[in-house]
């Protein structure tokens, strides 16, 4: 017979006001297996916990039920206290008579009856609880950062600074992400390349950082502290180690291609680096464009290459890396604009998006920093900036605010004004959201010093008339229609999750929201963690963010990684599945249904080493304790510790009427 102690908490009057706690304590005395009951003012208080320990010791309790608040609130507290008294922490259960009883059922009689049931139910369960030991796992002291933009680089640099090895996997040919495309950054107007390039170089030179560009994470196995990632390094057709970055191949390549880095405006070559400061400064052959891959002839780059590092037969390489923690920093995309016909994007060359404007304003961009509109190269005298294109627009776009557009539109009016002194910038906005340090001042500067004309309202239509773009809109403050003859229109496009973010989330086993942004574990208290232990988030892959926020989150993620990797071993809850090998018949429904790949096949051998039967085996490090396998198993041969069938049965049976 078990020796259960039942402690009924008053929670001040939070419980005792609507539950007869004394009666609960008294009646539980009669429950089989119960040897001690008491009601107490504040069980979670220091004296309350002290009492718990004392009684466990004095009455040699082997199980404890605390009838009090939600286990989400204080289960850990009481389990720790019980453990300190020498009781296995999993022999403690809580009956939730506060959140799910006293606070929601004002009738004392009803509340008391329900409390009796709930407490009895947990007594029946706890009697069947097994003593479980926490699972101890080793930690691989190495981190993986997915994404080589500002978020990824910052996280990698911070992790590396602590002496921990880190791998950056970047999908693109070079590090830099979106930030390296920007001209100048708000609210200081410092040149993005000037501040980003040194970080990229620093990362590439740091001995603790390994960079795989032109690479993607294809699969992830394992669990916190012990992940194994399969990385595909796509064939660059150039031997990276031998390339000196001289650029002669790019110069001699006869095949011109659109340059996506310049948003399709400049030209590049079939073998190229996207921009001169690329890290690593190694060109890649675009096999879709290269003449050789199409016709089998050309090979000019091969001929001109001094170090002979062109390798047309290069294959993708698979690298498996063991890591202990992961930072996901895959950034964002911008919303495709084909849905917004009213703005004429795609139809009129002089309607451009914000990122194209960034390239136009960049000294290294396709106009070398000069304001020249795409259609005829003329200097635009009047420019209209339209904000919230797709953002805060549930019907055509997304309901969220993309957060950075207010600021970058203000910045862009300033950049424009600084280059075209006589020009006029108009901004159509819904609200100005400038909630950051020096942000409001920055917007005021655009308006007051750089003469931007801010119009509160929406644009209904943009159309061409002669060489002008007619922008029709409304000024909702004055209530009048507005028509502006513009030379160029710049759209502040909504930020969206990366294309394929959902797929990556599935690969990594993290959750994502309905916009495919990755979900943080808790919006306030665990903003950089995911629900999958050991995987952290940085930057705009989680939600729209500007550079300072991204950098802050990247450093936060890095500190979480370092905290995790500073431990020699990890302990985790032993609520994992276990297989009764004698009964398992290896139908592998469990293996098929497990969301974590925690179940594998195992051969049972006889004394001579011959495999006599196959059974399912659970990797307790990977198992997260969802219990899907338990429900799927027809003969209940695989069971979830802590929630085994007999425990649930006992709960149901205790509620028999």
């Amino acid at each position, binding site marked *: 017979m078990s020796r259960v102690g039942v402690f009924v908490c008053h929670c001040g009057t939070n419980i005792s006001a609507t539950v007869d706690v004394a009666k609960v304590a008294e009646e539980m005395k*009669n429950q*089989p297996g119960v040897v001690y009951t008491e009601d107490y003012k504040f069980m979670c208080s220091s004296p309350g916990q002290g009492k718990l320990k004392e009684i466990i010791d004095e009455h040699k309790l082997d199980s404890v039920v605390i009838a009090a608040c939600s286990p989400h609130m204080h289960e850990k507290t009481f389990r720790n206290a019980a453990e300190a008294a020498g009781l296995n922490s999993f022999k403690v259960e809580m009956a939730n008579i506060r959140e799910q009883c006293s606070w929601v059922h004002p009738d004392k009689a009803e509340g008391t009856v329900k409390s009796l049931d709930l407490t009895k139910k947990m007594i029946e369960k706890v009697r069947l609880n097994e003593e479980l030991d926490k699972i101890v796992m080793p930690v691989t002291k190495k981190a993986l950062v997915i994404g080589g933009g500002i978020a990824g680089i910052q996280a990698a640099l911070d992790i590396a600074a602590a002496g921990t090895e880190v791998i950056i996997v970047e999908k693109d040919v070079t590090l830099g992400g979106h930030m390296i495309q920007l001209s100048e950054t708000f609210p200081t107007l410092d040149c993005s390349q000037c501040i980003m390039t040194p970080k990229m170089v620093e990362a590439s030179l740091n001995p603790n950082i390994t960079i795989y560009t032109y690479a993607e994470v294809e699969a992830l196995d394992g669990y916190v502290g012990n992940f194994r990632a399969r990385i595909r390094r796509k064939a660059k057709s150039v031997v990276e180690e031998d390339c000196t970055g001289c650029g002669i191949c790019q110069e001699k390549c006869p095949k011109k291609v659109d340059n996506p880095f310049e948003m399709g405006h400049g030209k590049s070559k079939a073998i190229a680096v996207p921009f001169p400061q690329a890290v690593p400064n190694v060109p890649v052959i675009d096999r879709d464009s290269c003449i050789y891959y199409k016709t089998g002839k050309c090979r000019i780059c091969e001929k001109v290459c001094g170090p002979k590092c062109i390798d047309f037969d290069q294959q993708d390489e698979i690298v498996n890396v063991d890591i202990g923690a992961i930072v996901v920093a895959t950034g964002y995309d911008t919303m495709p604009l084909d849905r917004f016909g009213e703005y004429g994007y795609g139809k009129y060359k002089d309607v451009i998006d914000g990122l194209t404007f960034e390239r136009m304003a960049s000294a290294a961009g396709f106009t070398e920093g000069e304001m020249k509109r795409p259609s005829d190269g003329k200097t635009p005298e009047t420019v209209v900036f339209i904000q919230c294109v797709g953002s805060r627009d549930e019907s055509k776009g997304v309901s969220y605010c993309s957060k950075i557009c207010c600021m970058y539109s203000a910045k862009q009016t300033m950049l424009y004004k600084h280059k075209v002194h006589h020009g006029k910038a108009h901004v159509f906005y819904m609200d100005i959201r400038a909630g950051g340090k020096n942000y409001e001042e920055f917007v005021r500067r655009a308006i007051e010093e750089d003469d931007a004309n801010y119009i509160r309202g929406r644009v209904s239509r943009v159309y061409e008339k002669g060489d002008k773009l007619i922008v029709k809109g409304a000024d909702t403050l004055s209530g009048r229609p507005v028509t502006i003859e513009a030379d160029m229109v710049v759209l502040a496009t909504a930020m969206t999750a990366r294309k394929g973010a959902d797929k990556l989330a599935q690969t990594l086993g993290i959750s994502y929201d309905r916009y495919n942004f990755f979900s943080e574990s808790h919006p306030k208290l665990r903003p950089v963690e995911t629900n999958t232990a050991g995987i952290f988030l940085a930057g705009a892959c989680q939600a729209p963010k500007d550079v300072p926020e991204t950098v802050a989150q990247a450093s936060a993620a890095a500190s979480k990684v370092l905290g995790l990797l500073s431990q020699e071993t990890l302990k985790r809850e032993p609520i994992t599945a276990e297989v009764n090998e004698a009964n398992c018949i290896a139908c592998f429904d469990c293996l098929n249904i497990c969301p974590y790949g925690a179940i594998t096949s195992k051969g049972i051998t006889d004394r001579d080493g011959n495999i006599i039967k196959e059974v399912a085996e659970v990797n307790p490090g990977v198992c997260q304790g969802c219990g899907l396998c338990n429900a799927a198993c027809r003969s209940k041969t695989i069971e979830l510790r802590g929630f085994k069938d007999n425990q649930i049965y006992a709960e149901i049976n*205790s509620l028999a009427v």
Partner: protein
Amino acid sequence: MTLKLLKEDGLKKLIEALNKADTRVVGPKRNKAGMVTYDDVNADTELELDEVIGRYSPKDAFFPQHETVMRYKLDGKDVHVKAETPVIKETVLLGVRPCDAAAMISLNKVFTWDYVDTLFTERQKKATIISLACNNADESCFCTSVGFAPDGTEGSDILLKKIKSGGYLAELITKEGEAFATTHKSIFENAPAKADTVAIAEPTKLDIDIDRIKSWLDDKEKSWEHPLWEQLAAKCVGCGGCTFVCPTCHCFDIVDEPYGDQGKRVKNWDGCQFDHFTLHASGHNPREHQPQRWRNRFSCKFKIYPDRFEKKGCVGCGRCIRVCPVNLDITEAMTEITQIAK
């Protein structure tokens, strides 16, 4: 032996009289699924007396497939336990076959052998068996091959034989039978000097010698590991249908069924053909393979029963043959062993 006459309306009157006396009548009756089983009968029109034999045996009347033997209830730290004392009514088994009547004697030996199962004996004591001689036999009937007869009297208190012109000739076999006829003397009339009864069935007489089978089984050197078991029973799927329909199979299991803070201990039919029947808690199973289990059932009928109870364990009702999904035919084994043992 006294002979009596039941006129054409005799059964009708008898059932009416028994109903009046609050006596339970169990007889062959067609259930909703269309099968004939032995169940409570309230009118003679419900009786299916032309059916060769019911799907299940009537043993359920004495040895229900599910029976509570004890109840418990937790009361605080106490447990109240109460033995089950069901109300057992006077019962008449009406229109059962002579083979089944004989089987009830064999069953009795088991339930009174070392421990007297009072639930069983009470039921049996309070029962009168009025069997009906068979006029039809099917391909599976083999009573005559194991020493019984379609008009055998063993186990019956009264044996009815159908009269061609209607009604039944009643042979009062036992004292109890005579007493019963006396109680119902208006129904059990004096028999005429000569009654023209319908011809008794003649089941195929098989080339079976049960004594020879017994001595072969006694000779374990020869029989225990004989390949015959494997040959015959490798196909057995262990469904246990044979044990549930058999009139002499008597194995049961005792389990507790909890319900909230109370519960009961029940006695439920079990069968030696189930793989877990002999499974030990250690995981060891002395009868690991189906042929071994089938050997057990066969031996139980033709060796253990005769050895222990000096009774035959098989009455040739043929139910196990009819119910078997893989045509595992006990007479095939008996015929073969008779040959082997020559």
